[in-house]
């Protein structure tokens, strides 16, 4: 670790903590391997997103205040989830008492791949990953944080997450028919609009399966959990992974 | 209070802060305007034809009722503008002059100075519009600059024949209006 390395607070969304510890471990180790000083504040809970998206933003002031107190002391806050980062940045309610801290937090919270490309200025990770993958761009990272160009806008093409993987030996990234359509997770949408949610997930998986993809790679475990749930139920052979797991596995 | 008063009062009561009105800048246009125009018209299911091709077409099809207000094709006209537009319901072909066109989308501007009757380009079975090469402009911004503050009671941009895709998104030409659009560039 570099001596003057900035101090990063690792934010692990609640369902990753409970269901996907390996993704959290990979995120932590990857940042450490890239020379960062990383701390996981043990008291952390949730950013409040599920409640806000369900229409209860006003009821999340306590959760939000706690989040600010847990993380404001770090130089940067990094999370392996675009969706939660977007929530903290844009949708968490204003806490007047903690105004300065909240502003610091909102200006310095990053999704993992954008932190690596934009703050650590790493162009790409070297290594080998001989697999055929499809990339699922999760909507909140894509159209909220602008982690990549989307198919709707007429803008130069870029993708911060795939940029990090572009030099991996043997990696084949498949072009999907619907490049960045939503997988249908959508938080409470997954249960309140169950029928459409599942149909969207099936369609998203089918697009990858049709192209002979081995692994669907994404940056938001909520979307992956939803698609994995459908793939398992439908006995699809396809695998799903968070990009942090791949990068942490290949990096020397 | 009249509805006008109540609507205006409701808006005024909001005391909205005025937002700025942007100026519209110039944008680059195609270098070969005739080529770009032809391409756009084809996409809209119209076709560019030469004078000779048009004359040949008229000779081949033997249309019974032809109306032309274009001096270049005056000799083909065999009817007068009727009192009531419904009397043009059996018009086979109309040949009219367009003022100018926009290459980006093939739209041709016509106003009342080109239309002896507003219904003509719509009611005719087939439509021919004649434009001058030098009157092909780059885009719609240039077209509106050309229109400027003219005061015609009616004006229209026509960019193709009448068409629809309302049945399972299959494109069908000739919904209600002209079943074909040919453009002669002189």
């Amino acid at each position: 670790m570099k001596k003057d390395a900035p101090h990063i607070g690792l934010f692990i969304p609640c369902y990753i903590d409970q269901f996907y510890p390996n993704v959290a471990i990979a995120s932590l180790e990857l940042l450490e391997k890239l020379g960062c000083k990383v701390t996981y504040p043990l008291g952390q809970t949730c950013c409040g997103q599920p409640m806000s998206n369900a229409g209860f933003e006003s009821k999340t002031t306590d959760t939000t205040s706690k989040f600010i107190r847990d993380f404001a002391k770090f130089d940067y806050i990094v999370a392996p989830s675009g969706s939660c980062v977007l929530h903290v940045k844009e949708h968490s309610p204003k806490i007047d008492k903690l105004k300065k801290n909240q502003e610091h937090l909102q200006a310095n919270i990053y999704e993992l791949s954008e932190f690596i490309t934009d703050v650590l200025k790493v162009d790409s990770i070297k290594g080998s990953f001989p697999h055929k993958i499809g990339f699922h761009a999760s909507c909140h990272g894509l159209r909220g944080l602008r982690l990549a160009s989307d198919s709707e806008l007429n803008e130069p093409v870029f993708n911060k997450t795939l940029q990090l993987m572009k030099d991996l030996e043997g990696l084949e990234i498949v072009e999907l028919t619907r490049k960045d359509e939503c997988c249908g997770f959508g938080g409470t949408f997954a249960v309140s609009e169950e029928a459409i949610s599942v149909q969207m997930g099936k369609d998203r998986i089918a697009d990858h399966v049709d192209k002979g993809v081995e692994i669907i790679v994404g940056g938001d475990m909520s979307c992956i959990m939803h698609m994995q749930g459908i793939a398992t139920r439908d006995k699809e052979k396809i695998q799903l992974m968070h990009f942090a797991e791949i990068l942490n596995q290949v990096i020397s | 209070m009249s509805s006008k008063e109540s609507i205006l009062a409701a808006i005024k009561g909001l005391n909205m802060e005025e937002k700025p009105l942007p100026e519209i800048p110039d944008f680059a246009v195609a270098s070969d305007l005739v080529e770009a125009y032809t391409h756009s018209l084809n996409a809209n299911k119209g076709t560019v034809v030469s004078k000779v091709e048009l004359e040949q077409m008229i000779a081949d099809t033997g249309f019974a009722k032809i109306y032309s207000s274009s001096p270049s094709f005056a000799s083909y006209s065999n009817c007068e503008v009727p009192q009531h537009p419904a009397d043009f319901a059996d018009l086979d072909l109309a040949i009219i002059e367009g003022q100018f066109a926009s290459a980006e989308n093939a739209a041709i501007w016509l106003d009342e100075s080109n239309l002896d009757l507003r219904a003509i380009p719509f009611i005719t079975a087939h439509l021919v519009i004649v434009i001058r090469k030098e009157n092909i402009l780059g885009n719609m911004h240039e077209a509106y600059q050309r229109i400027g503050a003219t005061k015609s009671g009616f004006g229209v941009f026509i960019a193709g024949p009448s068409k629809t895709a309302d049945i399972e998104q299959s494109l069908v030409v000739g919904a209600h209006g002209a079943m074909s659009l040919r453009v002669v560039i002189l």
Partner: protein
Amino acid sequence: MSHPENATVFLKDKARAKWHDDTLWIVRQKRDVTIHQIPEWEKLRELASQIKDHTLSKLDFYLEELEKNATANGIKVHWAENAEEHNQIIGKILDEKKCKAIVKSKSILTEECHLNPFLEEKGIEVVDTDLGERIIQFLKQPPSHIVMPAIHLKKSDISEIFHEKLHTEKGNVDPVYLTHAARLHLREKFLQAKVAITGVNFAVAETGEFVVCTNEGNADMGVHLADTHIACMGIEKLIPRRKDLGVFLRLLARSATGQSITNYNSHFRSPSPGKELHLILVNNGRTKQLAREKFRNSLKCIRCGACMNTCPIYRRSGGFSYGSTVPGPIGSILSPGIDMKKYSTLPFASTLCGSCSDVCPVKINIHEQLYEWRQEITKAQGSSLKGLSMKLANGIFKSPLAYRISGKMMRASLKTLPDSIIYNPLNAWGKGRNLPDLPSESFKDWYKKNR
């Protein structure tokens, strides 16, 4: 019925639902292809957005300007506070003309005002002349899409209704054949009609003119053959200058269908000699929406339908599932402003994926407004069941101990509960999806041991 219930029904016919999804996706793709041919596309969207923002911020001024200039041109301008008054104004004009049959071209506003039933009640025959509109009128259905009103129907459905109404050959599903039959049928109606009604795409304050865009030419066929033209517009359809049309006409058709422009774009400034031209300016709740700051800019909408074509929910649930005049994403932010209770499920019929906001040619932040409506709706609903469970969850998340215990309990109980309970059909998650495999320890436990 609520949106999720309607959507579930729609998805039951798998083949048809997939066809609907694919068909609209193709329209979205056509849009993508065209917009990439315009390097200044994003600049145009920004201009359009600013022009509309500006107009809305001075709407009273521009409305008066429009009225003044239109009146000077010989247009008779009327104001309607609501749908009823709009219908009354039209009814009165028709009574004066002793008119018993009208032709109408596509207008979402007259749909919103329920003009057709009003006129039919008065014994007036209303003929919708847009092909798609005519089809659904035969079927007594509302439009399921604002640009492609019959997009939910297959050609076999259309063939059937045409066979019944227009006596076309039974079983002939050829779109060319069917369109031609409609052409002959509607021509007759055009030639007879004395009054034609149209909507308005844009009205220009500076010149007092208004613009109507169609591909079929049905609006023009109607108005140029009739003696009286009645045009109906919502008060938000205004733009300040004629040259602003350059921006909007470049955006509208490209966004709607991927065409570079609609084939007919008619500018009406004054009536033909001896004829009459009426323009009705309709409020019907628009000033209320204008007053809601968070939702004000939904009034920038130019009704291109792009947000519907791109919406993964709309494509998989169909326009009728929304139960509102304007369906899809824009409908879901407009309708709660009209009746929050009735349309309370619409803002939740979204994953907030944001695709709608990025295709919108006037840059309405549709998905952010969906989020905002959710906040309004839950506030108005008070402590519903969902509200309580969410408060409970908030309580858990605010206390790390409670969170850890409940997480542990959740993991423990998932392990011990039989699959039949977890995957009970009443459990919405488990109906079509498995739950993740459970790790032996949480990250928090791992971290405490390893760091």
